[in-house]
């Protein structure tokens, strides 16, 4: 579909806003919606067919947004180019802008710039050590390839540790802090980070976008479709059923205590998966603390194809042949037996 000419789109926007102003009484919203963007964006139908013919939904669910980690950030804090209402077509959001929020420990304006630094030095950084762009730069992930707007996922610590908010703990905060909104926010803020915010399967899905894409795997000479091969092992299979106890991509690919954005290639001696460091992954206190270093040789990404591990490949073929080779002749005997029992007098050739 052809895009509407710009002028008519502005007219449409304008009419729409006038319509809204007339038809609806003003309700104050409780997210940090200073520019009142939700006045329009709270309506589920708000959408447009874009230049590529895809339907784009511009609806923002306020209750979900106010439960997300960015709830305190004003809409304009990220959509910085929107300065007037009705507004023009918006630019893409830059995740690294400085926002008006002050980070309390350093009292500086907050931004995610540090993450970019970490990411830049990792295997996923698009610039190599000499400062040149790497080949196939479009394959390297940016913030928005791995992230959407995450929701809080608080932990309850009363008697038992489980996901959710503990009213009992909230009661304790109330002893000293008076503002309900503050208490909820920071309870969520802290406890969400005390466990993983995504389960192993979600994490694998993020990585699968690239690491299960055969073209990207081939272009960058990686030996395996990493998420597929993870799913072949019991780690990956268990990830479908069990919770955070199962090792996910990050547990193995991040050295303890470092940012998840500092993933390094296996050739790098500082990387957690470097041959010399691999043993430490397995002997993690929560995993196989008593494992011998030999266990670390286990191929967590084995694919059992002819190229990657011929021994295992032939072994699988052997089993297929063994299964077929025993079953088919046996089935044949049964079939003959049954035929004979149903037709006791049938013969092939002549009986003497």
């Amino acid at each position, binding site marked *: 579909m052809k895009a509407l000419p710009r002028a008519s789109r502005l007219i449409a926007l304008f009419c729409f806003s006038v319509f809204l102003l007339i038809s609806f009484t003003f309700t104050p919203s409780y997210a940090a919606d200073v520019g009142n963007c939700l006045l329009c964006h709270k309506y589920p139908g708000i959408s447009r067919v874009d230049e590529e013919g895809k339907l784009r939904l511009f609806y923002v669910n306020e209750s979900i947004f106010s439960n997300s980690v960015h709830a305190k950030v004003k809409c304009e804090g990220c959509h910085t180019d929107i300065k007037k209402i009705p507004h023009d077509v918006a630019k893409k959001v830059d995740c690294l802008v400085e926002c008006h929020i002050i980070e309390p420990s350093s009292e500086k304006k907050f931004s995610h710039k540090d993450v970019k630094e970490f990411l830049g030095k990792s295997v996923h950084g698009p610039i190599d050590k000499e400062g040149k762009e790497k080949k196939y730069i479009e394959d390297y992930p940016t913030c928005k390839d791995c992230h959407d707007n995450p929701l809080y996922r608080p932990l309850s610590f009363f008697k038992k540790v489980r996901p959710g908010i503990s009213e009992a703990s909230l009661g304790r905060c109330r002893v000293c802090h008076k503002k309900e909104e503050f208490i909820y926010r920071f309870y969520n803020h802290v406890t969400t980070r005390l466990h993983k915010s995504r389960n192993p399967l979600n994490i694998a899905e993020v990585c699968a976008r690239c690491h299960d894409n055969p073209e990207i795997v081939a272009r960058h000479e990686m030996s395996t479709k990493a998420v597929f091969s993870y799913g072949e092992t019991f780690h990956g299979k268990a990830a479908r059923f069990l919770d955070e106890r199962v090792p996910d991509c990050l547990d193995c690919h991040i050295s303890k205590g470092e940012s998840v954005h500092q993933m390094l290639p296996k050739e790098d001696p500082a990387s957690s998966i470097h041959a010399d460091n691999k043993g430490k992954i397995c002997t993690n206190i929560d995993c196989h603390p008593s494992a*011998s270093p030999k266990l670390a040789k*286990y191929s967590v990404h084995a694919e059992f194809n002819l190229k990657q591990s011929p021994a295992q490949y032939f072994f699988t073929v052997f089993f297929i042949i063994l299964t077929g080779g*025993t079953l088919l002749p046996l089935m044949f005997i049964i079939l003959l037996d*049954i035929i*004979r029992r149903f037709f006791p007098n049938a013969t092939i050739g002549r009986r003497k």
Partner: protein
Amino acid sequence: MATSTENIADTPDTAETDDYLTYVEGVGNIPRDIYKHVKSDPLGDLPRYSMHIVIQHFMTFVTFLILAATGLTLHFADLWWAPYIMSLFGGPDVARFIHRFAALLMVIASVYHVFTIGGGIIYSLMKKKFNFRRTQIPVLKDIQDITHDFKYFMGKVPHRPKMNKFMYKQKLHYFAIIWGTFVLITAGTTLLFPEFMSTIWPNPQFAQDLARLMHADEAIMAVTVIVFWHWSNVHLVPGRFPLQWSFITGKITREHQIEEHFLEYLYNIEEIPEEKEYIKKVLKEKGLSTD
């Protein structure tokens, strides 16, 4: 009398020899198709399995089904039905416990079986009664039986071979189970105790990989063999449908014994006086008696 039966067992069953009648001393000539005229209790007439074997079979088949259901659900975790089966077992944590507990029972059943068989052999050796023809030990005759049976299925010979207590199918199946149980137990142990087993295996990485493959592949193979082979053999084949009770009663029907385990039947006649009287009576009624 003992010699007469042994002679029969030694005679190779070739299609050419006309062995329609089998002479048994004190009974007379028994025609090969006498099983069509005998009376059979569907629950079984003649001893086949001891109580120990019945218990072992029970333990093995119940644990096998549980192990397959819980294990294959994990193996096929990404298929649509997996989560439903998993919740049927009470969730992944319960299922994994059930799987391990059932595995333990199956190991116990296997050890129990080894002791029963080993003890049985020692006992009969001491009593000088050991007879390898009545065991699962494969012999040349099994191959001859297969060819003979094939000829029978093709209509080239009128009767099935005279076979021992365990016929070729059962021996094949028995050794398939021994192999399967061995593979599953070793692979399962390697998976369950990765830390410890990696200190035992010469090449732990390879052993782990193989264990992972073998455990699943062997399980799938076992399930297919049980469903398509064992179940059709013991339940679906006409004459056996819908169920043989041997797995509970430990007894085989007279008709089945004579048809498929004729040589074992001759031992039965020799060892069980009532059976001898019975078969004499049948022969007399049919006018086949020689005395």
